[in-house]
């Protein structure tokens, strides 16, 4: 086989291996974050530095600090399991009861101190019809 092709394939293979190493073996916290279900987290006692959790915001659980509106805590639920999340910062516009959220942050003492809070972006705006009359 041609020398050029061989060396190109070699470089490709090396970088592919490096990528796989970075993500799989090196367990680098700055690169990867594990997704947990709330059920899984509820059984954990020890704190975890980085977790990612998705779920719905429990209705009537949003509590915003009176003096600083950027401070919020709420419960996120999946089925019957729910977990407390606290967050400081600007909240997305779609943040409200039963909105689908993804939070990432540290898990400690049965709650999440979130550094990231995302609501599902509404690039698809689906939902029940709002102005209807039953017959």
């Amino acid at each position: 086989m041609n020398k050029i092709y061989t060396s190109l394939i070699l470089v490709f293979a090396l970088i592919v291996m490096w990528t796989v190493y970075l993500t799989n073996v090196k367990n680098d916290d700055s690169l990867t974050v594990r997704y947990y279900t709330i059920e899984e987290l509820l059984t954990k006692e020890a704190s975890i530095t980085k977790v990612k959790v998705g779920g719905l915001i429990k209705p009537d659980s949003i509590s915003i600090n009176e003096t600083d509106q950027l401070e919020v805590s709420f419960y996120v639920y999946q089925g019957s399991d729910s977990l407390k999340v606290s967050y400081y910062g600007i909240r997305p516009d779609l943040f409200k009861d039963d909105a689908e959220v993804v939070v990432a942050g540290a898990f400690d003492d049965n709650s999440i101190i979130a550094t990231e809070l995302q609501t599902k972006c509404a690039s698809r705006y689906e939902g029940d019809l709002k102005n209807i009359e039953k017959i």
Partner: protein
Amino acid sequence: MISQIGSLALSISGGLILSNFFFLFYYSIRKDKIFLNVSQRGLIAVCFCVILATLCLLNELLISNFNLQYVSQYTSYETPLFFKVTALWAGQAGSLLFWTFIMSIYSLIYINVTLRKMPTLKYSSYIMLSFIFGFFLLLSNFIANPFQPVSSDIIVQNGNGLNPLLQNVTMAIHPPTLYLGFIGTTILFVMALSGLISKSLNFEWIQSIRRWSLIVWTFLSGGIILGGYWAYNELGWGGYWAWDPVENSSLMPWLILTAFIHSSMIQEKRGMLKSWNILLASSTFLLVILGTFITRSGIVSSVHSFTAENLGPLFLAFLSSLILFTGYWFVKRFDTLKSDSKIDSFTSREGGFLYNNLILLLMCFIVLWGTLFPILSEAWNGEKIYVGATYFNQLNVPIGLVLLFLMGIGPLLSWKTTSRSTLLSNFKIPMLISFFSGVIYSIFFGPLQLYPLVTCMGIAFTATSIINEFRKSYKKSKSDNKSIPSAIVSMLFNNRHKNGGYIVHIGVTLLFVGFIGRAFEVEKEFNLSPGEEIYFANYIFKLNSIESEARDNHYAFISDIDVIDQRNNLLTSLYPEKRIYFYWNPDPEKRQPHSELDIYSTMRKDIYSIFSAYDAEKNQGYFKIMINPLVNWVWIGGIVMVVGSLFAFWPSKRRNYGII
């Protein structure tokens, strides 16, 4: 009535596709041309039926026929006319029909223009087109039918309306542009494989597929850039790219298509890399379908949600069958894909294109790996692990920088081989200018941050090298032409392919100028009452007032912030708004807040302001300000890229560039 016609047109096109398979089957047995012609007409009829169905849906959206589920979900009486049109692709069912609509238009051009010149491709093209149409029509007819009426026990008084986030001109043109790119890859796939199957990978074929690929590339690039522009101006997180799975799904085909455009040049000039090009051309389409699968199945958590009907398994089945089909014919025809010549040297233009392919492919792998990693890791050990922006940046930024330099190196290399003396004399000037711009950069900004420094040097290197190419061809054309303007025009138009390519490359270097800014972004969140001010990033932000106003379809709180610079001059006033859509709705759950940003934008930096919350009791606003340097260069680079590729393939009268 109109909706019944649309629905009927969809069913008829489904039926026509079925009968097409019979005709094609007969043709394969009897080899009677008439069956092939009938199936051609069948496909054309399908295309027109789909176009008719799309027009019917458009009509229903315009007249607000709320008896249709789709119409009442995405429009309301209040929706402005323009956005009633764009609602056509706002939801799942509509966007699938719109997809098939664009495919119909492409197919009509392909059948009537390209296949007329290359009749040997007809049979296999018709089979593949029928299969692909069949799949999308199956979805539109049975799974996500846009003509589905609302359930019979309700009367819809008014529709839901279009999401305010989507009521934006950019958002109106971004999806169709991206779709034109995505769906154009269908033609590349069909053409690559039918060329392979019918063993007609001749010069005419490569020229034609190259022109198609440029058209598709232009739309894809434009669509991606517009998406970033929309995100930046509308979503309010201050960036244009977040490595979200949906974004990645559009980037991957773009990377592979870019690789194809380069490597097909080697096939055009030297008859090499035939098998490789087939793989690249067909992979773009496979990656588009993979991306659609990822975004419409919900297997990877993305901030873009596609919740309605789960189309995942169907897309997976479709993708697998396409991969199997490609693999089968690739292996079966492998012996016809031998190269006419060999690559001679590392320092040749061919070598340069190969390095380009290596890098684009690596980037695509990294993006693919990162996007699929949650699925792969879950399959591996049950742990769903996501990789973040850090992963993508850490790996892609250095590789991207190599690509930046490579864009400058390419033009310095000759075909076949470059002698050492030519190499040295060609590299001298770009190297020197690159070095000096590095020194100047370090003096002004300090050499501490490595990536911005290297990017700056790369931009200087590549820009010099490309400008030098233009200078050389200008000299040549100056000797034939007398006046300077006519020399420039004839230089540009003499080799439009090449010059268009260089213009695209200049666009990419401008993009990199914008990327440098990422390293210097700063942001701050704070609250202010009217009359108060805050100091941040060498500016004073003074909140004058917060007014409120009821408008046509929303209620707005409008803030008025003065930005005062270091010399105490008023730089600008920003008016970010907090809007409440559906504010008249008695149920607060159904109201929707929306932050309308305001950006003060200059070539050097953007001051980006978000009004995120309003505390009426205390009359206090919560704001976020970001200073984003050089962002405008990203949009300028994007425009230059699109202009360059338009220049490269725009039909001209002198030579018959109209062949596609």
